[in-house]
């Protein structure tokens, strides 16, 4: 059983339904969304997102050898774009109990242990992309 699973994993399973991982590698950058929070203007550092969640995404991009291109907006704008495939990942105060979970895939917690559980959102069904991200987060934590 275990051997079989190892073989399957080696064959590149799980794959993405809409090929996000391959697209990002080909494109050379991650299309990331950062939710602007009115209560926390410090999260924008001279126009580009800063803070722990932004660092995780940048770090992940680095591990893949690609860049990050940020798009800043409201949660509903960014989530809709993510759902339609216009973005690859969204961060910024998203909780694992987010009502968006019916429309997007939510990752394992990305915030440091002991802090409120913040997660990243990816497009639904992009399981390879999600697994890769979670592996990176796991190694980082």
């Amino acid at each position, binding site marked *: 059983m275990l051997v079989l699973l190892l073989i*399957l994993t080696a064959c590149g399973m799980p794959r993405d339904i809409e090929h996000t991982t391959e697209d990002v590698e080909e494109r050379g950058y991650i299309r990331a969304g950062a939710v602007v929070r009115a209560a926390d203007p410090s999260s924008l550092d001279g126009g580009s997102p800063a803070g722990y969640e932004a660092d995780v995404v940048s770090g992940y991009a680095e591990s893949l050898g690609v860049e990050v291109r940020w798009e800043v907006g409201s949660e509903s704008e960014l989530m809709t774009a993510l759902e339609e495939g216009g973005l690859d990942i969204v961060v910024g105060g998203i909780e694992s109990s987010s009502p968006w979970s019916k429309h997007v895939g939510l990752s394992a917690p990305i915030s440091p242990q002991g802090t409120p559980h913040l997660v990243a959102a990816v497009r639904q069904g992009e399981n390879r992309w999600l697994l890769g991200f979670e592996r990176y987060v796991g190694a980082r934590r």
Partner: protein
Amino acid sequence: MRIGHIHELPTDRQGDLESAHRFAWLTIAFMVSAITVLYLTLGSSQAMKAAWIEDLASLVPPISFLVASRFADRPPDEEHPFGLHRSVSIAYLFSSVALFGLGLFILTDSLLKLVSREHPTIGSVTLFGHTIWLGWLMIAALGYTIAPAVLLGMRMLPLASRLHDKSLYAIAKMLKADWSTAAAGITGILGIGLGLWWADGVAAIFISFDISRDGWTNSRTAARELADGQPRLVDGSAVDPLRSRLQTELEKVGWVRRAHVRVRDEGHVFFAEALVVPAGKVDARLVEQTIDDMLTIDWRLHQLAITPVETIEIE
């Protein structure tokens, strides 16, 4: 003529009933473990959800079997002059309808998800420092449910025949068929792994269709039994030969010229009534003797009433 507390089962089958009880408890224990394991790995796979609901629904038949068999052998009383044999059929109908309802629910749910082209997202878990895809754990959990279910089902099937218990038969069949649920679930997860968004939904539809079909056939059998339909063999494959056998045996009796027998299935046991055209004058002692003789031809024949009549006209 003795009426009152007569045990349903002959002493040589009492042991079978005890084994059936043990297996019912084992089934419940196994199902609870399967439900827990599947719940822990549920994720957002619809096929897993369907398999989980199937296991949840599978708890109802063994529980209602155990509950019903507490009542079935109770002695008749003022309120229940025929005893409580039918509690078996009521439990059977109840669990079949539950199965059917759950099947339909999950079938609709799966169809809606497929139509709205929902893409199942399955993340990862960290086990012993390794982050692995949750899909692999789901497959392992489904795989775990196969062997015990099939083994339990295979052991319970012969008991169901020996006890003439249709609900036990349905449980055994359901357990034996459990491997196809697990196989469908595993195929669905592998499909997701290959990036096929529809694989999960199709597997879920397959599973839920199976649950509904089981529920539907069993509800029909149970309803037919409660409506005093012609008793059938425990697997439902044919009419039970007891009625024609009883009629033949009765017509062999000296004082009987003609007989017409009707049999009711009361769960584990049969109640029969016979219209009899006597060859001469009716001797009450002979009638009672005949009843006693007839009750020995099959343990499932629990009570027999003989009504002597002048003619029998079947319209």
